[in-house]
């Protein structure tokens, strides 16, 4: 039998080497900023609203992290902005799997306009990346602005990224000014979510941190009434309103 080792050399070794990694790398992703805008005015102290909010956001973090795991489109960065008397950044943009929420306290006025001004300063390039997805802005408030929110909002919407952002607002309790929360959202199709109790607050916060996140990042199945020309991003419906609960704010 004539058989040269040479001839079949391509099959005789490498039992230990066949698990070579394939070339290339991770698919390239876009930056997605997710920003919490939190009302910390004195009234948030009533009825444990601020505690409920702290709880709800902490509760949502693992879900947010899991959702972003399946995300082939976005590198999710989360930050938070607080407003009461004036407005301050409390959490700088942080990767979703490193994100931690520190409980916040409530006192002071409701300077929503200040918050909008602060936001408008970062919703431009730079500090935003050249390669992003529409940011997600989530406004949580229980009351009436005490400053000139109109100028702030105008400034925010004059930034292209402010305009393109997916803006969601959650009213904490019946006293919130729904009209202002609606003006923040802008379009008439979507409405502010009214959280009447801690359960629905938890539910809405989970919804914005998972479903809305993916609306910008991982496109979801779209329903037939989809219309690509009206809004920037198609957002799935919020969770059903809870029934049968009596604990209301």
């Amino acid at each position, binding site marked *: 039998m004539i058989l040269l080792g040479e*001839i079949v050399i391509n099959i005789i070794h490498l039992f230990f080497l066949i698990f070579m990694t394939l070339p290339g790398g991770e698919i390239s992703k876009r930056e997605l900023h997710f920003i919490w805008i939190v009302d910390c005015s004195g009234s948030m102290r009533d009825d444990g609203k601020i505690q409920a909010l702290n709880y709800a956001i902490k509760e949502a973090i693992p879900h947010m992290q899991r959702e972003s795991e399946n995300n082939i489109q976005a590198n999710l960065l989360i930050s938070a902005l607080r407003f009461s008397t004036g407005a301050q950044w409390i959490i700088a943009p942080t990767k979703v799997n490193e994100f931690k929420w520190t409980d916040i306290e409530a006192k002071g006025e409701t300077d929503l306009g200040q918050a909008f001004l602060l936001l408008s300063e970062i919703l431009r390039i730079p500090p935003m990346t050249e390669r992003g997805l529409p940011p997600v802005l989530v406004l949580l408030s229980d009351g009436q602005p005490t400053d000139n929110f109109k100028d702030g909002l105008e400034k925010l919407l004059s930034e292209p990224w402010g305009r*393109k952002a997916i803006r969601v607002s959650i009213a904490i309790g019946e006293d919130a000014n729904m009209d202002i929360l609606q003006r923040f959202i802008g379009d008439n199709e979507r409405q502010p979510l009214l959280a009447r109790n801690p359960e629905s607050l938890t539910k809405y916060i989970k919804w914005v941190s998972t479903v809305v996140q993916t609306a910008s990042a991982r496109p979801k199945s779209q329903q037939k009434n989809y219309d690509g020309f009206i809004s920037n991003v198609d957002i799935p419906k919020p969770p059903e309103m809870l029934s049968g609960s009596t604990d209301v704010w």
Partner: protein
Amino acid sequence: MISKTKQVNNTHEFHAGEPVHINGLNIVCNVEKGLGSGTQGKVYSLISPDNSPLVLKWYFPSMATTEQYDILKSLIQKGSPSNRFLWPLALVNASKKEGFGYVMSMKDSRFKSFSFWLSRKVDPSFKVLLTACFELVQSFHLLHSKGLCYQDLSLNNIYFDPENGEIRIGDTDNIVINGEDKGNVIGTPKFMAPEIIVGKALPNTQTDLYSLAIILFYILFLNHPLEGKIESSIKSLDLPSMSKLYGFEPLFIFDPNNDSNYPDPAYHANALIFWDIYPDFVKRIFVRAFTNGIKDPTHGRVRETEWQIALLALRDSIYYCRHCGSENFLVTDSSVFEKLKLPVELGGINHEINVPKQNSTVERVQNNSVCWNPKCKTMNTRILNIQIDDRSYIALNHDTKIFPHHIDPDRKYDFSSPVAEVSRHPTDPQVWGLRNLSKNTWKVGKANGDAIEVYSKQSFSLVPDTQIDFGSSKGIVCY
């Protein structure tokens, strides 16, 4: 006023332990736990009497439409096209709950979302990826040939086993009879056919074919086929810009006649790297899928049977680089092959003499035979393979198996059990052979002219120019 949080009695949610009567299967299960929710409903794992792994999907009240109910009823009646589909098995109604749900089999945890591959959290081989792609195409072929249409094909709904490429297809509750304007989804943005995005069509089997091509490209190139320079020039990818990129002005990144959307090396390096690795026939089929396939939705799309042939030919052409072990692809262009095969003289191998350098086709083969691994780049010139009836080639590696698909024209796509495998000589590890795993006896003509018979379980030595008569086809060992 906030009092203590109390258990909310939701009328459309289940809690652990709650019994679920599944009349269609004649069993009562208990809810184990919630597995997750999507846009349509929430999914729970069930504890069933015989421990069969079942899950319950319960629709959100707004999604629990009569139309959905009818779709489910007809899917259950039709039955699953294959076990690759997580198909509805039975409808579920519960007197105290709003809406309805259905049960289906549980997806085993070995199945991972393809997003794990795109994020490189799993490390499959080309063979596994091509197996998964083939299974996808085959499954959708089966579905479409039954007159059904998936409607919402995307990477979100398909899963694979990174060890062997077996797949599962989820979210089957939107499947409808093709052409019937049923169901309430139109697709997932980056996977929707352009004609749906521009509003000219609703989902149908032709649009499924487009989504399938997108998925195959994503898996094999780790890049969207329409995301090139135009995409990277968009600062904020919002819905209007997506409609333009994927719907109104779609342009393939490797369009041979228009390079204005060519991959941007800063963001689309994967596309460039993989484009260099695959043989031409693979590039050609993708070019067709995203040029004619976009221009002419009715006749221009690559059919599933064409994908099947291309994907299997590609999988059969995998060989391991002799230096680093990376999977490379053997170029199986037959005219080129003739040139390589003819001059082989046993015992007197000399690349310089046998492969005429001036021949441009052969030159290209040599280029393609350079291992893609940047740390290796070894030239692999002689790759043992078997040519079957002049129509296909299979690279012969230490782990190669040959199936009825390869040798029996009447049993195309039959991979149920192998008919042959590469085997090592029991006493001389330098000698490799092909073992007969079939019941038939092979007639083998050795290179020196001798004729022998190889019975079931026997092997013959893999020597170039050996001819094998499998009965249903003939093979020749090439080198």
